[in-house]
């Protein structure tokens, strides 16, 4: 039995959102299961099922994954901030 991760797009233009998983022998039966389990009541324009084995998870810990988060020089300071303040922050 394969585990399939399920992604749903609610309306055109929305990102596909991970909603959970189903177990099924193949992609067709996984899609059949995912539709009735996850989008019985909600609007939906797109549905993906992905074999869990095909999902590649980055193995970096949170501090490595988020290392870009602290880089001040990539940030906008907002309207009105003088340009030399940006360089000054380095």
């Amino acid at each position, binding site marked *: 039995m394969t585990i399939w991760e399920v992604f749903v797009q609610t309306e055109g233009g929305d990102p596909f959102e991970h909603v959970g*998983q189903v177990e099924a022998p193949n992609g067709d039966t996984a899609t059949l299961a995912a539709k009735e389990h996850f989008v019985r009541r909600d609007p939906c324009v797109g549905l993906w099922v992905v074999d869990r084995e095909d999902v590649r998870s980055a193995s970096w810990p949170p501090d490595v994954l988020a290392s870009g988060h602290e880089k001040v020089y990539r940030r906008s300071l907002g309207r009105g901030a003088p340009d030399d303040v940006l360089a000054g922050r380095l």
Partner: protein
Amino acid sequence: MDIEELKTRVAAGEQLEPWMDLPEEYISAAKRMMEFHMTSEVVGPVHEFWWVPKAPSLEAKMIFAAKSQDEVGHGLGLMTVCEDLTGRSRASYIEEMFDGPPRFMNVFHYPWDEWADPVIVSWLIDGAEIERQTTLLKTSYGPYARAMKKIVKEEGFHYHCGRFLADRMVHAGAEPKRQMQDGLVRWWPRILAMFGPPDSKSTHGETLMSFGLKLSENEALRQSYLTKFVPRILEMGLEVPDNNLGFDEDTQVWSYTEPDWEEFRGLLRGGSPVGADLQKALRESRLLNNWMVTKDAA
């Protein structure tokens, strides 16, 4: 991660994920709590599907079928969360359910012999679950909190379904109304017990609270339930069958007949009136279709 660090992070509102280095005690507590919830959602529908065919009108049938279907989906959602936490396969969970002693909510241990039973359960018990389950949206175990989103959305419908069926039943005639009242007499003590003993009597409850898995004290939930549901029962034209029921305006506390906690605990120790029947039904449907399991199934 050690337990003290975990408690600090949880108290700060952090939600935990299975790939973090979670302490054994936390995993064990989360597993026990989620498996109990999951098992309840898998055995509960057996009762319901004994009654779906008997719903007395086409509307009742469709509504009750939709509600029962949701419960199966809740079992499915929680099952996947348990599988990921423990590494156990679906097959092993299903098989355990029909062999081991069943561990699930008290209300499912009793027989549902009359139509009033599924009606009352849907109205008063699904209704009771809404508040507790809403608190679980913030449970410290991330996958559990995420699975609860869909569950909580659907519980609201279940309460309305129950209220619709109850309303139909009390207005269907004198006899159905009398059966609802009798049903309340049967179910009231079980509903009160459902929230569990006050947390001062439960070390387990304290652990779950300190881990952020559980977010409301049992007594607080019971009190909140009484405030919401006693008026609703009266509005339905029924009486609450509890001579000790009363609300103290000064302390703002409800008093009620203390549930029989021995009976409550006994249900999980072999004292279940219908546990064996439920297991038998699950086992039979699994064995009937065993040949379908493909070669590579776990």
